[in-house]
């Protein structure tokens, strides 16, 4: 039979290239497994990649190409929240479905939701709920300072965590937003020191984290400070470069390679064997997406957009991090959230919140 084609528009160059790499590794691995086991309804999966160049205008053009020329049945891979939203509009016009496995911004399955867009990873709100619950136990009534990257994702994660943490008794000392790709975070250290926080929450990601953490360590700020962050702040991808400075960092995630289940152990092993690197949340969530799509198509017995949408809504499926459900009301995945902490250079699970407790209300106005 003809293969089922899945388009992947993901940043393979530019600032987010490292994330794109994890996305690719995760998708490739799942595809290989599914294909080896006979594919979806007897059809092989074929992945078609396009470089998004971390630029929404390019993303849109590439998405158009995948839909119109390559006639893909489904599309994924967008990282930047702005790209996800813009590509969602392309999907609507083409009457196709997309899913993001990376973008955090709450809006994607909130105010800016679309019937054609799904999200299989945990959004900012879910991450914060788990982390705040853990913080309330570990350090009750903590005094928190916030540092986020100045764009939608940064604002959204800081707001979400602030909200969750204050509800569970913490207090906020101040917040500062640094431009994306800042070379020097030391200029915010004065404000930070003056506020004398016990806890720092940050949602900078990728290479920005490397700089922030090593500069904080250089300036002796890591002493007696608990650093928390968004899921993307420290991952397998930048952990080696951060080194010791990451010690003690805690975050709420939908995935960690240390999750102690047989399914995950198997996944991590296979991933390491294929890519000579550990999976992070992007790799795992992208991996899981292929299985979600497989389940949905098999349930619908078709790749038709409406039928697959129907099948994806309220779908339950197995992923390395356990069972996930796609909430029909906003197309957001509901999943168990973990709190993980860097100990001895590795993530250790230190807390867990059930999917239902972390998910938060459905705010999608459109369907």
């Amino acid at each position: 039979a003809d293969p089922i084609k899945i388009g992947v528009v993901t940043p393979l160059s530019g600032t987010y290239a490292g994330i794109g790499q994890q996305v690719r590794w995760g998708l490739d691995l799942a595809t290989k497994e599914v294909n080896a086991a006979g594919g979806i309804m007897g059809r092989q999966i074929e992945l078609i990649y396009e470089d998004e160049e971390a630029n929404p205008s390019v993303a849109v053009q590439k998405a158009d190409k995948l839909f119109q020329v390559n006639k893909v049945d489904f599309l994924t891979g967008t990282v930047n929240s702005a790209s996800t939203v813009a590509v969602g509009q392309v999907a609507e016009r083409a009457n196709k479905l997309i899913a993001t496995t990376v973008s955090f911004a709450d809006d994607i399955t909130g105010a800016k939701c679309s019937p054609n867009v799904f999200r299989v990873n945990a959004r900012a709100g879910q991450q914060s709920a788990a982390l705040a619950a853990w913080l309330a136990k570990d350090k009750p009534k903590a005094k928190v300072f916030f540092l986020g990257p100045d764009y939608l994702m940064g604002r959204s994660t800081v707001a979400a965590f602030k909200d969750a943490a204050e509800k569970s008794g913490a207090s906020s000392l101040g917040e500062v937003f640094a431009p994306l790709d800042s070379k020097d975070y030391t200029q915010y250290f004065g404000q930070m020191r003056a506020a004398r926080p016990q806890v720092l929450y940050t949602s900078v990601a990728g290479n920005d984290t490397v700089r922030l953490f090593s500069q904080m360590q250089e300036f002796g700020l890591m002493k007696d400070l608990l650093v928390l962050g968004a899921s993307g702040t420290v991952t397998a991808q930048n952990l080696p470069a951060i080194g010791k400075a990451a010690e003690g960092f805690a975050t709420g995630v939908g995935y960690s390679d240390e999750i102690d289940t047989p399914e995950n152990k198997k996944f991590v092993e296979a991933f390491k064997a294929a890519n000579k690197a550990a999976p992070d949340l992007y790799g795992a969530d992208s991996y899981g997406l292929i299985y979600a799509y497989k389940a949905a198509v098999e349930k619908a017995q078709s790749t038709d957009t409406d039928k697959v949408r129907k099948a994806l809504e309220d779908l339950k499926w197995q992923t390395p991090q356990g069972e996930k459900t796609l909430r029909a009301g906003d197309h957001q995945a509901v999943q168990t959230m973990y709190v993980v902490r860097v100990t001895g250079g590795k993530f250790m699970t230190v807390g867990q919140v059930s999917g239902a407790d972390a998910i938060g209300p459905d705010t999608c106005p459109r369907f």
Partner: protein
Amino acid sequence: MADALTRSMRASHVLVAILVIASLIFAVVGAALGDTFYLRLGTEALIFAGLALSVDILLGYTGLLSLGQALYFGLGAYVSALVLMVTPSFWAAMGATLAVAIVIGLVGGFIANRVRGVFFALITFGMAQVAAKVVYNTRALGASDGLIGVPIINVNFGFASVSSASPAGFFVLTLAFIFVLYALSAYLLDTPFGRLVIALKANERRVPFLGFSTVTPRLTAYVIAAVIAALSGALYPMLRGFVSPELLFFTTSGNAVITVVTGGVGTLVGALYGGILLTVLKSVVGSYTEHHLIVIGLLFMIAVIFLPRGLMGIVRPAIERMLEPRAKP
């Protein structure tokens, strides 16, 4: 006796005619096959060719390298998007873009034209950076996310109407529009006004002694380029349905310069061919390797070194020679 500059301009016209005919065939074939992607990609290529055209007016004729032409392109895109989201009218969007582009072009031209040469390149770059950062930081303009949800519109000509969602229709509309921009620029550059602009490039300091102010032609050329960039940009949200700050970034300006240099500086038509070539190239190379920057960068370097007059620099003289016998009685 045909003037040398007039003659080379005529050769450009021949090349444009070829391009228009080829594009129309492309549109017919595309429509017949029910294609959308290639027609839309072609439309996007033409839109960016419009931006390149404005860069060539500055670089090829006025002798000024603009490293910030995306400022006007992005301006046009944002103005058009904002207007369309309020009232989905093509003419309102274009009218508003034209007005805003003239005003901002005059201000920008006043600032940028205080300096020459490399300083001009840097000042235009600086202005575009400031504008891009302002848009990026302004929540009312969608900040880093840009604006999505620009509606599909119907362009009404009285006798006919074209939907921006119709791939072939909007392609032909864009083609006609860019062609008009080209024709206007080409016409202007062959007038005494245009020749004055060219003279400024060749030896600015001599011009006043011929009885002409240098300020007016230079500023006029700058504003014309700004308007062309902005009007081209105004088509972008109609095609794609959204705008994002990346449209104002240096990558956009830089790509326009690459386009002009590869196509042929000072030919006008080079901007159009270059725009199409580059779009096709990026689309093709990008599908094979994620290291397309190496390929594009190398090609660009080769163009700068070996084809100082770009692709049209090779083709156009041949056409000029073909036109020669007809020019002389």
